[in-house]
């Protein structure tokens, strides 16, 4: 039983981190209509900044720089590239982001090399134990922080003028624009928010139990895509729930692989996508996605 609970706790905490990434996908998508394939390299940039700066300026200052840097990078990508597309539609924007991803990743790979850069977090390799479950301290903090972040997001979107403007822009850009909402501003805010969330996720993904920053960290953002999709492309709540589902299912598939041997080896890799396809079969627009109005 404690084995099951340990795997469950592992899955939930990992799922919350995935949720942070998936929410970034949602916010960029709803605020600017871009499928952000460069999310992974933005995440890696944030984490990389923390890793190289934690020695000279201290961990907490480095964290601030990393988060701000990733947010700024997002804003710049949007302002310099996305808004200057010759032809603005989700298809070309997605390919643009692939180009940006190759650019950033090539440079970061060159800088990081074959080293594994430690993130230097004060929680180190500590673990916490409660009720027979052992969980890395970094994961426990990540889970708590993610919940707080989600709460702040809810407050922002529900209670502040800027948040309401962003929701209005997402729901109907044209109408929002007519009502005086500056879409350039809501777009920039969306990219900044997504970049900051990615950097936070990156810091925890590079903390124990992971050894530190390696270029493969950028690929983790792809792991959040099933979470985003099954939650429903435009729902923040959906992204969080999707992250939790993918996290738990992956952890259990790995944890009980020996009992699921008839399905083949390496289930952890395929299970998130299998779950995603199953959900889409039942609900084509995801768990929390807006049903499209058109019925034909």
């Amino acid at each position, binding site marked *: 039983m404690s084995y099951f609970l340990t795997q469950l706790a592992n899955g939930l905490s990992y799922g919350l981190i995935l949720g942070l990434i998936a929410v970034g996908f949602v916010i960029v*998508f*709803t605020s600017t*209509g*871009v*499928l952000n*394939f460069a999310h992974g390299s933005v995440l890696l940039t944030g984490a990389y900044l923390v890793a190289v700066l934690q020695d000279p300026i201290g961990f907490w200052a480095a964290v601030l720089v990393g988060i701000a840097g990733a947010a700024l990078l997002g804003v710049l990508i949007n302002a310099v*590239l*996305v*808004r200057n*597309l*010759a*032809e*603005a*539609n*989700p*298809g*070309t*924007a*997605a*390919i*643009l982001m*692939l*180009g940006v991803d*190759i*650019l950033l990743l*090539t*440079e970061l790979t*060159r800088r990081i090399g074959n080293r594994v850069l430690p993130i230097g977090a004060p929680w180190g390799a500590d673990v916490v134990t409660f009720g027979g479950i052992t969980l890395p301290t970094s994961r426990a903090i990540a889970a708590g922080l993610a919940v707080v972040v989600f709460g702040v997001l809810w407050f922002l979107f529900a209670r502040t003028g800027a948040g309401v403007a962003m929701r209005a*822009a*997402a*729901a*109907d*850009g044209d109408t929002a*624009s007519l009502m005086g909402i500056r*879409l350039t501003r809501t*777009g920039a805010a969306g990219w900044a928010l997504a970049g900051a969330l990615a950097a936070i996720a990156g810091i925890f993904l590079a903390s124990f139990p992971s050894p530190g920053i390696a270029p493969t960290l950028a690929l983790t953002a*792809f792991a959040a*895509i*099933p979470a*985003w*999709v099954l939650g429903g*492309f*435009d729902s923040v709540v959906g992204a969080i729930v999707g992250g939790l589902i993918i996290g738990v299912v992956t952890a259990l598939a790995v944890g009980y692989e020996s009992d699921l041997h008839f399905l*083949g*080896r*390496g289930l952890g*890799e*395929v299970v*998130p*996508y*299998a779950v995603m*396809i199953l959900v*889409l*079969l039942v609900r*084509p*627009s995801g768990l929390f996605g*807006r049903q*499209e109005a*058109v019925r*034909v």
Partner: protein
Amino acid sequence: MSDLLRRLPLALGVLVAALLPLLATDFWLQAGLFAMAAVVGAIGLTLLVGVAGQLSLGHAFFAALGAYTYAWTAGEIGGRAAGLGLPPVLALVLAGVVAALAGALFSPISGRLRGIYLGLATVGLVFLARHLMVNLETVTGGFNGRTVAPFAVPGFSFSNSDPDYVAVAGVEFEGLHRLWYLFLAVVLLAAWLGRNLKASRTGRALANVRDSEAAAAAMGVHVARAKVTAFVLSSAYAGIAGALMALAYGRIAPDLFGLQLSIDFLIMIVLGGVGSIAGAAAGATFVVLLPLVLVQYSSELPFLASPGSGGLEAATLARLLYAAAIIAVLLFLRGGLAGAASRLRHRRDHSPPDTGGPPPVPPPDSTDPAPAHPGVPPRSKETTS
């Protein structure tokens, strides 16, 4: 006049492609084979994206299916990995058929999802494919892959043997040369079919669905069926492309059919100009050849560091340039390569350049949160000719 002008480049292109093997080195032949395989897949995808407004990131899955179907059905009976020993021609057709069937099986999703949503859902197929390729060892050879039987028609093999020696105009035609003409024929057939399809009743129905599902339905188009048709067709193209890739490699393994392949197909059609068959061909050639050419020749540049010394190396520079080229096309060429070419043509014809470009599109800020189609293509001339 404009008709002639439009056809001339095509005829010239085919002529050059037909004569190239007499001059090209093995490097260009091999790169050309990969490019032509990619062209077939890209045409299939551009039909799906450009004509039907659907998006697929699952092309690697269907390509893998085609590749393994060919290798399995044409494979020797009793070889290292299982084979049926069918004639290669039949195996090539089966590669398309099996991929189409798999596309049809996916119809509960492809018929109900639109545009970019479908694209993300199909990412799942790529990972499913890898799981199957690695685990179904008797057919696929597992992670080490399996060899691919060379293509052959009775009495003539598209490999280095049987006949052992063929020469045309004094140039020895080895496997690469022979395959070149097979690939060229398949590419022309694929382009011709695609073009006819766009102009056909089905093609117009698909375009209606892309523009407005409600309007299409009102005009009597069965929307879900139209979307499934487009998906199935596109899958068949991908299957054939996969079989060609298998022939170009000579040996296939799961690593060849990763998500990167799907992404590359998408880059090809967007760079080329969504919906244009010539654009898909240009985009595929660009994506396959550019990195190779950059790697081949960037090492000649003087300011670069030697490998391992930590400075900016040729290889890194080549990759950065490749990414920069993608970004530049998207920022500066409206309608991709095909759009640019068509504007150039119109300028020559003294007609206003704008008509060749795509219709005005809303700026990114006002993008609908649930955009209906991933790439509204220009209503290119080809649809109406």
